[in-house]
């Protein structure tokens, strides 16, 4: 499903950088690669699609097929809270909006979907973090050994 597309689209990450390229630039690229990893790990998800379209410069984004449910947080906040006071509802609304901003593609989602996507996103993030941590420590270990070997 879009293997070629992946290849082409991610190629810009692959542009040869001289080894003394800016540290920040490399960091940024790695972060982008990490986010692509996130995308690839949960392909079918709405947040995955949103994240992907954010990362990749795409022309002609028309056939997205994403549903814009647009249940406003206010309405759902009421559902959540029940019939509590208004200020509570506003508090919850605020948090829901913040959550919407955090989760990629969250603005389009209705509340129940938002929670579902958030759960999946959290899992994916956690997995990504684990992998990166493992990779980092592995590389560090290898580097240390290499240094030892050399010296």
């Amino acid at each position, binding site marked *: 499903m879009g*293997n070629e597309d992946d290849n082409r689209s991610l190629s810009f990450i692959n542009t040869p950088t001289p080894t003394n390229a800016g540290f920040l630039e490399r*960091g940024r690229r790695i972060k982008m690669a990490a986010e692509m990893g*996130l995308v690839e*790990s949960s392909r079918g998800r709405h947040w995955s699609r949103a994240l992907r379209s954010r990362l990749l410069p795409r022309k002609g984004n028309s056939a997205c097929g994403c549903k814009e449910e647009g249940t406003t947080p206010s309405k759902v906040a009421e559902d959540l809270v029940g019939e509590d006071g208004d200020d509570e509802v506003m508090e919850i609304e605020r948090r829901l909006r913040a*959550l919407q901003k955090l989760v990629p593609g969250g603005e389009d989602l209705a509340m129940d979907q938002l929670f579902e996507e*958030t759960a999946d996103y959290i899992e994916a993030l956690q997995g990504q973090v684990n992998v990166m941590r*493992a990779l980092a420590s592995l590389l560090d270990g290898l580097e240390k*050994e290499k240094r030892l070997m050399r010296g």
Partner: protein
Amino acid sequence: MEPTRSSGDGSGNSGTYTPEIAESLRFEEEIQSFMRENTVHPSLEPPPASGGSSFTALLGLPANQAVELLHDPESGDSPAVAAAAAVSGGGEMWRFGLRDPNALTLPSGCSPTFPSNAALVERAARFSIFAAEDSPDAASVPSHSGDHSPKLKAEPPDTESQPICPIPVERPQRPAKRKEAEKGNKVKGPAKKSRTAEEGSAKVAEESTGGDKLPYVHVRARRGQATDSHSLAERARREKINARMKLLQELVPGCSKISGTALVLDEIINHVQSLQRQVELLSMRLAAVNPRVDISGLDNFLSAECGRVMVGNGRGGVWMEQSAWMDAAAVNGGRRQQQQQQQQIWHLDLVHPHQTPSVWERDDASHLFTNPNPGTSLFGYDPASSVSLHSNQLKTEL
């Protein structure tokens, strides 16, 4: 997710659904035959065969007869009737909604008569409830029926507010009718008491939202709560949302003990933010790893295959490594040379120190991997030279 409104069968006017009329007629015939067998209440003359009007007649049946009707029909009719779950006392009823009835496909060739039988189901449910209960409850049925009938008529098009008939325990479910079977199971276990039914309701709500094969949602109307269609739908939504919130709470560490929606949401937001920050920090850390030079074989790292190789459990891993390596190694064009082996090396290597191999081996369980020998060469820098291209075994030398 939420079931779309079924072609709202009102109390008795199901004649609008041409596809179902045939089935409803068949059902009617059976019902009528049963009614003739039993002593029929004088007010329940078998009505002319029009869409759903016979159902109302059935609905007027006294409890035991309704139950019998529920039991007897062996054909694929009245899936709703068969769906009866055990019940609740006093004014509570199971309701469930349908998706588009035309989309209903019952296994084993059951005819989807359900939508047209909705009204029947509701009434039968109410009656059968009481059949399952003690006689005093059964006696109370007729008095309730009057209350319910106007409600019944009033809630025509709402998909979600169609009560299920509870079947007394001895008739567990019709295995052919997957919907009811599942629903019946869930509801029946708790049997006839309201408290157990309430336990079941939470379960049912969750299951119905969790498992997407069931087209309808159970919403339990508690005592004293409004049972009109709108509030029921709202309640269903609310329960669904609460279920999701609970799921999120379990996901976020330390959230289960927090009470109060706002605080829980706070925790969730904090958790997401912290994870995102960790990703960023780790990517910086990886960038700080000294770039290695002259990696001839690394250019093929960037490949689409990594998506394939990715495992559900170990999210995001392979991509990350490859890109990091590539970037660090100043890749120069020429991808896809030895993608697959490279990827395999990479993720297997990664697995070894930190993760269970099972996670990564999902895609190709036959990968064998020898522990990298420290000190020979850098990890992954001689992939082209040292890797044997067997699909089964990979060795890397480090």
